C-alpha cells in the first residue's frame, strides 16, 4: 500500500468535486457532508462524463452528462442503470492532510 499526500482538507469544499491528476489517471475527490473524503476514477462508465462536476447527495454523485447515480462508497452505478467505477481509499490524518491510498496493483504512477 502506497500513500500519496494530495492536499489539505481545507482545499476541499463540501459536496463539491475536485480533480486529482494521479499519473495517467484522473480522479474525482469529494468531501462528503460527514467530513470523509472519497475518490473515484473521474469517468462515468456511461459516456465518460466527468464525475468531479456532478451534484453530490449524501454518498452519491450524479454524472453531469446524463444523470447516472453512482455510490461513492463502492463505485457502483445505481439502478436502473448498471456499471461501476474504480474507487480509491482516502484517509484524512489528524493534521487534516488528505492522503490517497493506492495498492501496488492500481497504481500507474511510474
Amino acid at each position: 500500500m502506497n500513500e500519496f499526500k494530495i492536499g489539505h482538507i481545507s482545499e476541499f469544499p463540501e459536496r463539491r468535486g475536485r480533480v486529482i491528476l494521479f499519473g495517467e489517471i484522473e480522479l474525482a475527490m469529494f468531501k462528503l457532508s460527514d467530513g470523509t473524503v472519497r475518490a473515484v476514477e473521474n469517468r462515468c462508465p456511461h459516456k465518460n462524463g466527468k464525475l468531479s462536476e456532478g451534484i453530490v447527495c449524501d454518498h452519491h454523485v450524479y454524472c453531469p452528462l446524463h444523470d447516472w447515480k453512482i455510490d461513492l462508497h463502492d463505485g457502483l452505478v445505481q439502478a436502473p442503470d448498471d456499471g461501476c467505477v474504480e474507487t480509491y481509499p482516502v484517509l484524512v490524518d489528524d493534521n487534516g492532510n488528505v492522503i490517497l491510498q493506492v495498492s501496488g496493483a492500481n497504481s500507474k504512477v511510474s
Partner: protein
Amino acid sequence: MKKKLVMIGNGMAGVSFVEQLLKLNPHRYDITIIGAEPHPNYNRIMLSSVLAGDANMQDIVLNDWDWYRNNNITLLAGQTATAIDTAAKTVTTDKKEVVSYDELVIASGSLPFMLPLPGADKEGVIAFRDIKDCETMIETSKKYRKAVVIGGGLLGLEAARGLINLNMEVKVVHIHGYLMERQLDETAARMLQSELERQGMQFLLSKQSDTILGKKRVTGLSFKDGSQVEADLIVMAVGIKPNVQLAKDSGIEVNRGIVVDDHLQTSVQNIYSVGECAEHRGIAYGLVAPLYEQGAILAKQLAGVENEGYHGSVVSTKLKVSGVNVFSAGRFTDEPGTKALRVQDDLDGIYKKVVFQNGKVVGAVLFGDTADGSRLFSLIRKGEDFSGREKEVLFGPSGGAGAVVSSADLVADMSGDEIVCGCNGITKDTIIEAITEQSCVSVNEIKACTKASGSCGGCKPLVEAILTSTLGADNVKTIKEGICGCTKHSRDEVVEAIKKMHLTTTKEVMHVMEWDNPEGCSKCRPALNYYLGMAWPEEHEDELESRFVNERNHANIQKDGTFSVVPRIYGGVTTPEDLKKIATVAEKYNVPMVKFTGGQRIDLLGVKKEDLPHMWRELDMPSGYAYGKALRTVKTCVGNTFCRFGTQDAIKMGIDMEKKFERLNTPHKVKLAVSGCPRNCSEATIKDLGVVAIDGGWEIHVGGNGGMKLRAAELLVKVKTEEEVLEWTGAYLQFYRETANFAERTSEWAGRIGLGAIKKALETKEDREALVARIDKTLALTKDPWQQIVESDDLRKAFDALTAPASPEAAAAGDAAI
C-alpha cells in the same frame, strides 16, 4: 451427464427462450449459443434510440457478457454457423468450430430485404438492421447531408427519424400511396404524415425506385416515372425476410420461413426454431410479442414441462412513431360487410376507428391516444357481440367515457408470459414477480425494478392495472407526484413552506418537509436552490453545490468535458476593440472553435476548465450567461438606426432590456428579442418575450419558443413608450419567476396557466409596479460572476486540478501543487 443444447442465433427471441428455460430447469442442459454479431444480446427495437443519441450500445444490451458467464453459457460471438449435420448432430461455424448437440434451436432471425436495384452495391447503400448499420449512419451524417430512406413502413420511419436527429435532410420514398399501410388506415396515415412533415421529414409517395445513381458512391436515386432525387446515403428499409438458408441447406423443410409444428419442432427430430425465422401455420411473425410467446412455449417443451403447445398469436401493434402513439389490431380496413365507428379530432390530433362485423369488434386503429388499445385488443380476442350497442365500445354504456371491460378483467385475461412492455420485453409475470417478491407498490418502483414502462411509457396504464389487480386497489400507493423522487410535496407546497416558514437553505427545506433522502437528489437540489433565491433574494445564500455543473462553473460543459465561453454582447452589437480582444484570447488559449451563436454572440468552444478564469480576466467582458437558467440574449434587428423600414430604435430598446435584466435567474432560460417593424427580422414572436415595433408604439408578445417545442408567442399588450416596455417586461418576468415550476420554459408555463391568467396578473399598474419592485430588488443584488471568480482566490481554486506527487516518498516533502 447433462444434455447439450445448442442455439444458432443470439437475438431477442432466442435468448428470451433460454432465459425462460433456465428459470424452469436450470441444470438440464449445457448451453452453447452461436451469434454472428460480435455483441451480447441487445434490444434491436431500441436501435433507433441509439441513432437518436438517447441511448448507446451499453444501454440497449439486454443480457451482458456476465449473464452468459453466470449461467455457464458458452457464447461463440462473432461466429456464423455454416453447416448442420443432422445425422451426426453437429453444427460447424465459419471459424471451423464443431459443436455437437442433443437439442438444436435455430433462432437465426431475419435478414433485411434488399431491393435488387441496379447500383444497390454502391458505397452509401445500407439496410437498417443492426449496430453496424447504425454506426454507418452516424459516420455518414458527419460528412454528408442528404439521406433517402426507401420504405415508409415502421422500420423506414424509425430510420428516417434517427437520420433527422443526426441532422440529415431526409426524404422517405414509399411505393404505397400512404405510410405504414400494414398498420394504419389512410386517415391515420395522413395524420402521421403531417406530424412527421412538421418534424422535418419529406415524403415521396407512390414512387417506385428504379436505379441507384453514382459512380463509386451513391449520388442519387431515380424512379420508374423518370424523376430522380439526390442522395448521399440510401437506407433500404422495405422489409425483412426470414433467415432460412442454413436450415434449407441442411435439409430442413423451409417455406417462407423454417416450418415448425405446434411444439416449434422443425421437420427434423431434435431441431426446433423460434423467432422471425420460423413459420408457424403459414405465418412468420416480425413483431416481438409473438416471438416471446413462442420462446416461452419452447422453453416449457425443452424443460420437460407439460404445455398446450403454440397456437399462433393474434397480433396487435402498439408503438410510438417519432413521439406519436399509434395502435392497430385485427382487420382494420373497411371491407364489404363491415361497419366502422370513427372519431376524428384534428384539434388534438386524435383518431379512433373500430371496425365491426356482425356486431363483433374485428379490428381497430388508434392514433394520438392509444389508451383504449389494450381493451379493444381484448374485445377482438373475446369476440363479444355488441349488436345494436356498438357505440358503447368507444363511448361507454351511457354514451360517456365509461369502460366496457374493466381493466381488472383485462389483466385477468392476459396470460403470464404476455408482453406488457414491448420496448423492454417485460412480461406480465415479471411485473407480478416484482410486486410479490420485490415488494413494489407503485408504477415507479416497478419501473426501477424491471424497466417496464421506462422507455416509451405507452404501457403505463397496463402496468398500473396489473399492480391494482395484484395488490388490490387499497394497497397500491397512488404516488402523488412530488417535485422529485425524494418527496411527495408539489412545487406549490414547497414554495409556500419556504415563504411561510422563512426557510433559507435546501437543508432546512428537506428537513422540515421530511425528504426521503437526507441530501436530496440532482433534481430537487437545483430546484430548491432556485425557489429559495426567488423567495428570499437577500437571505438565501446561493449554494454552489446545489447548482448544475454549468451554473457552478459559469460555462457550458461539452461532451468531452471541456467548456465554452460566451461573453455578453448587448443586443448583438459589438465593436472592433471587443472583437480584437476575443480574437487575441482565442488565439492565446488555442480555442479549437469560434462560432457565432443563434443569439447574436460569439461562442469560444473547447476550453479547458483551468483556462476559464484566465480567459475571463483577459476578455474583461461580462458573462453572457449562456450556461444558465437565466436571461440569455436580447436579439435585435437594426431598427430605424439603419433600416429603411424600421419604425423604432430596436437596437437601443434591446440593449436597454439586456442591461436591465442581465444576470437574472429564472426558472428556465429566457430569450428575448426586439424587432424594429412588423417584418420581425429578429424573430421576436418565438421568444420567451418578444417586442415588435409598430408605428407609434410596441407590441409585447409572450410565451413563444423556437426550440424543442415550437410555439408562437401570444400578444400580451400594445404600449407606447420604451419605459412601458421595460415595466411590462419586468412585471412579466417576475410573475414567471414567482409562479413557474423550476425548469419550465415560459412557453410551457404560459400554455399551462393560460394567457388570461398572465394578463390578469399584470392588468393594473399597481400590480405591475409591485412585481417590478421585487424584480429590481433581486437585480440589485446580482454581480458579474466571471469578475467575482477572477477577483477571488478561493473561487478560482475550484477550477484547478490537484496533482498527486510523483512518488509516495515525495509525499513527505510537502504540499501538492495547487
